[in-house]
């Protein structure tokens, strides 16, 4: 025997796909994508990961970085055709049985997502998406090419903005 069966890497890849697909789609949603766009972006990222799977040492970070880059590319492409709004990936496909429709029913989730997506500047949104997925300031700094201090500052400003936005919403609801 000179090499192990092809299924070995596939088993690892499949297991990772099952475990990480949903968290990755959620990550892209917190960057600003609607659920359908986020699903497409994540699928594209996994498709790129597949042939290189055995060379990827930190797949959680690798896939997030690729997905993030795909999403920003998608935003740039959308901006060439329409004016770029806060959620540039907004669905072109019928909502049908999609996650978008299901999430419409969740008022609180909708509020939080709206606050994050519509009102946080892109950099703060980006830092928070990584932060909420459990990455440290140092890791985020490494992945985004920023200093740790810049990440801390963006995180602090994002929290301040979210406190204000959610307080405004609470006041508006009364």
């Amino acid at each position: 025997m000179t090499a192990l069966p092809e299924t070995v890497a596939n088993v690892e890849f499949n297991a990772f796909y099952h475990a990480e697909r949903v968290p990755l789609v959620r990550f892209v949603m917190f960057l600003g994508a609607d659920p359908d766009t986020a699903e497409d972006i994540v699928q594209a990222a996994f498709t790129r990961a597949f042939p290189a799977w055995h060379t990827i040492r930190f797949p959680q970070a690798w896939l997030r970085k690729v997905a993030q880059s795909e999403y920003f590319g998608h935003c740039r492409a959308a901006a060439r055709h329409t004016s770029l709004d806060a959620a540039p990936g907004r669905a072109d496909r019928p909502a049908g049985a999609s996650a978008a429709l299901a999430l419409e029913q969740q008022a609180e989730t909708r509020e939080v997502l709206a606050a994050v997506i519509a009102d946080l500047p892109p950099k703060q949104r980006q830092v928070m998406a990584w932060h909420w997925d459990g990455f440290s300031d140092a890791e985020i700094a490494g992945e985004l090419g920023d200093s740790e201090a810049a990440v801390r500052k963006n995180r602090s400003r994002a929290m301040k903005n979210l406190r204000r936005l959610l307080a405004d919403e609470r006041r508006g609801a009364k």
Partner: protein
Amino acid sequence: MSRQRWRIGGGRITDDEVNARVVRARADITTVLSAVLDDDAGLAQIYALHGQHEPHRADAPDPGRDDESGQVQVVCDRIAMLETTLAQAGKPDGSSMQAGMYLRMARGFLFELRSGLAGRDLSAEDAFRLLSTIRHDLQEADRTLRGEQRLALPRPALAGIGEMRELTSEMTGQLAVLDEQVMRLFGHSDDPAAVPAPHH
């Protein structure tokens, strides 16, 4: 409890509240996505794009292939466990710098072995050579530690060296089990110790 608060028109929100709402929103999103995303269809699409067969489905089991993959997974899990142990033992600020260096090298070769097995691009000869190199590094670490135990060092330093040596010895035992598992994967009954370790 967070001290930071935002007060506006009688409504105030703390960092803890923001975090709690985000946690709930993330949980809701997870529930919704898990219900609507079809992983099998997504995987099949990726495999098709790369001209490969679809992954195994739960409704179409292939016991032989599953068993083979399962065995590799078991070996990879064991290697990952050894890597984790060595990461602790081989910290640069550990009790013995030189032994730590050997342990870190052993860990690097373990990673190489695991990547090769998982990536199915490792020959039996290379696998056994890596195992032999790892064994060599562990032996060198032990030899170094044994020498340092004879030195007139402060008691805490000697205790640290003793612990490192114990761990190295435990790792050598674990490696013997790993040898057998890797041999079985490749369908070999050769003695892997016969493959010479490359010089560093």
